[in-house]
């Protein structure tokens, strides 16, 4: 008879010890950050918060009518939830396989345990955990709000079911190339647009059937073309990123990053064309892929802001554009400095102006999603001034970009050059974008701005890297 332990016992042992270690770390951080007095006040605050749940329940019972109206409307739109939720999972698949499979699980597979069975247990764990999470959350909502049990169970049940049905698609998408992910995202977005436009119940049902069908199609290939190392590396990072510990120890956990989202294509393995453009362009790509979270947060926030502003009025649209110009150029300037303070680049000589020239292309790419909501607005509100206003806005953007990145270059060169005048000019350019909404003639300052851009570009081209050397 074999003395080999059962896989379930080993996995349970692993997870119990992982939880224990995390608990110990949290305890240490807590002891470091909280003294007895603070602990006492926190305890009081905790008690108050617990009581407030019931106070809150009593209070919201007064608004029962409102809740019932909301419930009725929400019940009619369950179909939207079925088409909208997969979008979140497809989006997550860019960076997250959706299944907690760490290097510890991977190492178990080097022993006599089957990797397929380990994976299956991890999936079951995910489903069971999410089931209890939704069940308890649902019960709490039923307890403190006037929402009906039927409604809460429908919503939490749908959330759980979609989570379950999206497990495999997310897992497989995570392993796929980026353009497949983007393609899927577009298809799901299209399905949502059709759903919103037609408001047909059957779209939700079709989506559900489609999901079941996709799952059946994917089952035979669950373990084909899987990059286990990448899955484990990402999950290790996810599991051991503990904000409390980072705050207490004043350190930040860095991802191992042995695997990149862009690798594995033959084209990318070829040597570069030996030009600054080709090499630095790739380095920016590498840099942005490492900072994808921050970039997508900023671009997403600006996009949301502009979508909302488009529905308010014209002034807000121009204000939104000015804010976007300011935020994007500021972010570019801060990225520019940071690029040279990370990885191998830090120890190499810097062709700062070549890096600047290649950065602008990436900035234009970042602008695309922000410009999208504004285009329909300008088409619907076309005026004779509009083309000049658009050229003016773009010029103001370029001017601000040059000024801010030139300042970053100066910092990197360890110069003590002051940029107050240039920064005021850049700020005026951004303010003029807002003013140009009510006084379109302001856009004529574009001529002055183009002159200034040439001046700041000249700062760049006249002082070439070769001359610096």
């Amino acid at each position, binding site marked *: 008879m074999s003395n080999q332990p059962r896989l379930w016992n080993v996995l349970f042992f692993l997870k119990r010890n992982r939880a224990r270690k995390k608990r110990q770390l949290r305890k240490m951080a807590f002891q470091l950050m909280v003294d007895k007095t603070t602990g006492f006040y926190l305890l009081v605050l905790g008690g108050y918060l617990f009581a407030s749940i019931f106070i809150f329940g009593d209070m919201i019972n007064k608004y029962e009518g409102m809740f019932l109206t909301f419930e009725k409307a929400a019940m009619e739109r369950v179909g939207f939830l079925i088409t909208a939720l997969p979008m979140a999972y497809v989006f997550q698949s860019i960076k997250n396989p959706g299944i907690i499979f760490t290097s510890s699980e991977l190492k178990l597979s080097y022993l006599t345990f089957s990797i397929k069975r380990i994976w299956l247990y991890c999936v079951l764990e995910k489903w069971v955990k999410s089931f209890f999470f939704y069940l308890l959350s649902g019960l709490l909502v039923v307890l403190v709000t006037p929402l009906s049990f039927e409604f809460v169970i429908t919503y939490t049940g749908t959330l759980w079911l979609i989570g379950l049905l999206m497990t495999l698609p997310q897992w497989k998408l995570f392993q796929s190339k980026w353009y497949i992910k983007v393609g899927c995202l577009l298809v799901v977005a299209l399905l949502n647009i059709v759903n919103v436009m037609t408001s047909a119940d059957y779209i939700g049902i079709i989506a559900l059937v489609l999901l079941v069908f996709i799952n059946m199609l994917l089952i035979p290939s669950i373990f084909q073309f899987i990059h286990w190392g990448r899955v484990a590396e990402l999950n290790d990072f996810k599991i051991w990123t503990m904000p409390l510990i980072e705050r207490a120890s004043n350190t930040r956990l860095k991802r191992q*990053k*042995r*695997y*990149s989202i*862009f*690798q594995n294509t033959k084209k990318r*393995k*070829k*040597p*570069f064309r*030996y030009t*600054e453009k080709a*090499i630095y362009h*790739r*380095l920016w*790509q*590498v840099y942005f*892929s490492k900072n994808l979270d921050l970039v997508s947060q900023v671009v997403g926030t600006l996009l949301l802001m502009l979508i909302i502003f488009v529905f308010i009025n014209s002034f807000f649209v121009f204000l939104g554009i000015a804010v976007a110009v300011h935020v994007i150029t500021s972010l570019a300037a801060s990225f520019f400095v940071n690029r040279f303070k990370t*990885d*191998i680049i*830090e*120890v*190499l*000589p*810097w*062709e*700062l102006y070549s890096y600047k020239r290649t950065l602008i292309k990436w900035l234009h790419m970042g602008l695309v999603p922000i410009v999208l909501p504004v285009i329909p607005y300008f088409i619907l509100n076309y005026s004779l001034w509009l083309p000049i206003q658009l050229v003016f806005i773009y010029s103001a953007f370029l001017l601000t970009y040059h000024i801010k990145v030139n300042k970053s270059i100066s910092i*990197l*060169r*360890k110069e003590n050059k002051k940029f107050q005048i240039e920064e005021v000019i850049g700020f005026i350019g951004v303010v003029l974008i807002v003013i140009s909404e009510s006084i379109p003639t302001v856009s004529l300052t574009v001529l002055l701005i183009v002159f200034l851009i040439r001046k700041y570009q000249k700062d760049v081209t006249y002082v070439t*890297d*070769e001359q*610096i*050397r």
Partner: protein
Amino acid sequence: MMLKTLQVQNLSLKLNDKILLDDIQFELEQGTVTALVGHNGAGKSTLMKAILAVMEKTTGKIIINEQIDQDSEFLSFKQQISYLPEEPLLLTELTVMQHFQLYGKSYQIKEDVLNRKVDRLVKGFDLVDKLNEYPESLSKGMRQKVQTICAMLPDVPLMLIDEPFMGLDIYAIDYFEELLKEKLKDGTTLLLTTHQLDRVKDIAGFFILLQQGKLLSKGSIEEFDTIKRGTDNE
């Protein structure tokens, strides 16, 4: 009079009120090899990082070739140094050849010169069939070889080498020593850190001994033996 490739004057470095380097002062003459020795935490790597400006110095001056000051001509200053770190700093997203090209472009090496050098060095380090591989598909020793080639590509006045021979096999060590001797012949000055002075005794002419961020002594490598014996006897 010999050209002073590196002048470090009154260099101090503080981090969160902790003094990591305290009033360090030394000069390296052209074409010499100096071993930076000391126990763990003595400040060897910190000193290298301060020279590279990866860590910001608090006070002092660092000058290359008696005229290029780290503070006033920073970009030119960086062009004069090649650095070989103890642990490879290779990017996951670039292949071996792409790393060489990045170094070539950064140090403004012409394409034909770069290709000639790469061709010779990859043969010497036995990496000919690894040029289009990503670092993670290489063994640790191979990654160290790649990083070593990167550092050997530019012709610069000063090379900083953190723990040479670390992770290299005996054939690679022999070849690397040969390359270092060539560099020396061409006038490059080498500053290298080491725990094991015996391994660099053949090439190093001078030493700088650091202890808790302070320069304890410096001189020719023969003098170091006397100091070491004296310390051992105490």
